[in-house]
């Protein structure tokens, strides 16, 4: 699928391919038609994580290295206690710039436990663990915390870049309208297309809007062994107001529409850990939304256009029968839909 080359000025001006798994049909629409496809009492759930400046360039005794933060804390579903903001899971990348595809980069230098990376005069990190799966996956401890750490991260880092774009992205390009806590290392891209006008139209239609915070992780690492592990365990937080809104919607036969894969992961991951029921509060999920996954909470999903084989695409299989999805993929490719971040959208929802 053709990629978009730059974020469009009017976010909601995207095409939307509506797939109706109920009757097996598809329709070419624009995103502004979303409110007309929803009913009063339906609930749209977005991911309100802001996107971090997750790409940092540093130097080590062995040479330069690019570090991409993969998430705060350790990459293990068991460690949902985050005691300090100075511990991060990160992936090391080899030399190159944003114009090179991740998979074309040379291998990064190999770091060992105890090695230090200098990012700036006032920001260093020590490697505290190296993964047995891939030497690229490490755990770092920064030499500061709190306001000093965050100020330095925002000064040194920049958002993860995409080689198909025509120029490097600034931090504001990758924020959704409703971005709050900076938990996402890559942009929660489906929500990026929602603008204030569209949110107003949804409200006027009687559609509820709720949020989760989900720490969307890296989409690729350049190492097949590590890519096979993606997504790594990710933090989420489901506010009590969202649990109540979902229960209220379901009690009145309203449908729950997730905006983006990360919302599916947060809500279904939360439900999977609590006997198919949602529990408010923070957690960590390692739920994989592969073939055979049956959604318990979510009825439909608004997502970007993704190529077959990607984890986003695989997720759609949970909502759309195979033949319809195959037809939709062919249709999107032959009709010029734009893929990847900042591209067009796809709504999987039975009417």
């Amino acid at each position, binding site marked *: 699928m053709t990629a978009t080359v730059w974020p469009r000025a009017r976010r909601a001006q995207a095409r939307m391919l509506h797939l109706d798994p109920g009757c097996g049909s598809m329709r070419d629409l624009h995103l502004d038609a979303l409110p007309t496809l929803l009913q009063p009492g339906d609930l749209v759930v*977005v991911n309100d994580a802001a996107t971090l400046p997750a790409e940092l360039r540093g130097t080590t005794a062995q040479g330069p290295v690019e570090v991409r933060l993969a998430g705060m804390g350790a990459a293990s579903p068991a460690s949902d206690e985050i005691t300090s903001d100075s511990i991060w899971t990160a992936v090391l990348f080899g030399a190159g710039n944003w114009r090179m595809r991740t998979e074309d980069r040379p291998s990064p230098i190999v770091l060992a436990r105890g090695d230090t990376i200098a990012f700036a005069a006032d920001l260093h990190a020590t490697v505290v663990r190296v993964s047995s799966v891939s030497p690229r996956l490490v755990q770092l401890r920064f030499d500061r915390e*709190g306001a000093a750490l965050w100020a330095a*991260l925002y000064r040194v880092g920049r958002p993860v870049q995409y080689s198909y774009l025509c120029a490097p992205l600034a*931090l*504001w390009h990758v924020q959704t309208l409703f971005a*709050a806590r*900076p938990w996402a290392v890559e942009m929660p891209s489906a929500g990026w297309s929602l603008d204030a006008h569209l949110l107003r139209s949804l409200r006027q239609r009687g559609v509820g809007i709720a949020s989760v915070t989900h720490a969307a992780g890296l989409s690729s690492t350049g190492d097949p062994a590590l890519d096979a592990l993606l997504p790594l365990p990710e933090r989420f937080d489901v506010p009590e107001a969202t649990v109540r809104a979902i229960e209220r919607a379901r009690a009145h036969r309203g449908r729950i529409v997730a905006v983006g894969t990360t919302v599916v992961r947060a809500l279904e991951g939360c439900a999977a850990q609590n006997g198919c029921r949602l529990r408010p509060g923070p957690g960590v999920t390692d739920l994989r939304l592969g073939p055979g996954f049956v959604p318990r909470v979510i009825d439909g999903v608004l997502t970007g256009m993704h190529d077959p084989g990607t984890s986003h695409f695989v997720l759609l299989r949970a909502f759309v029968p195979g033949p319809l999805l195959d037809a939709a993929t062919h249709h999107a490719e032959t009709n010029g839909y734009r893929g990847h971040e900042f591209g067009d959208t796809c709504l999987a929802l039975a009417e």
Partner: protein
Amino acid sequence: MQSPTLSGFEPDTHPAVLLTGGSRGLGAALGSELARRGAQVVLVARGEAELRAVVAGIRATGGVAHALVADIGDKEAIYPLVGAATALVGPIDVLVHDASTLGPLPLGELLDTECEDFGRVLDVNLLGPFRLTKAVVGSMLLRGRGLVLGLSSDAAVNGYPGWGAYGVSKAALDHLLRTWAAELDTSGVRFLSIDPGDMDTQMHADAIPAADRSTLASPADVAIRIADLIQSQTSIATGSRVELAIRGRVA
């Protein structure tokens, strides 16, 4: 159940406050007062040493405060500022636009004002608050609550000779918040302009060096009034402009 406060938060919670201009004068006093009342405050200013001293003072008395050094007139500073602040205290509940500049001193009349100096005043006093509000309000909108306060001046209403750039910027800030209030009228997110009146601050001394300081209100007293307002259950209409004082005397 108690009716919600002006900021939409119960009195016993710990709202997240992002306040610009926190190193001196009213900003420092209001940050300290809100922290004393249990808020988690992030104070922003350009002057690092002064800002750290204010935050250290708040922490010494058991308050929660963080210092972020930034120039609100710098477009590049806004998203890093909001990201770092939100990482530290969570989604912002109360945003206070207190930072502002008078422009070059001593104050000069408009015919003597360089266009670039006029532009810089608008960058700090108007565009900065616009950008910052834009980066914060979307999250308030989703949560259905929040308060954005702009510190205004009677120079926003009256055309005082010599106060041209500053007065224009404050009039525009008032109107920015008024318009935002109209657009988000029923959302639960509220916008207010507050004219605190003449206070005994460095900014006042810069503007009117010959002023009789004994006629000026203390920033600490005005901060108490504003904190009371934020915590009050009064139903001031969103988009209002509140005048706290008349001619230097706290009303």
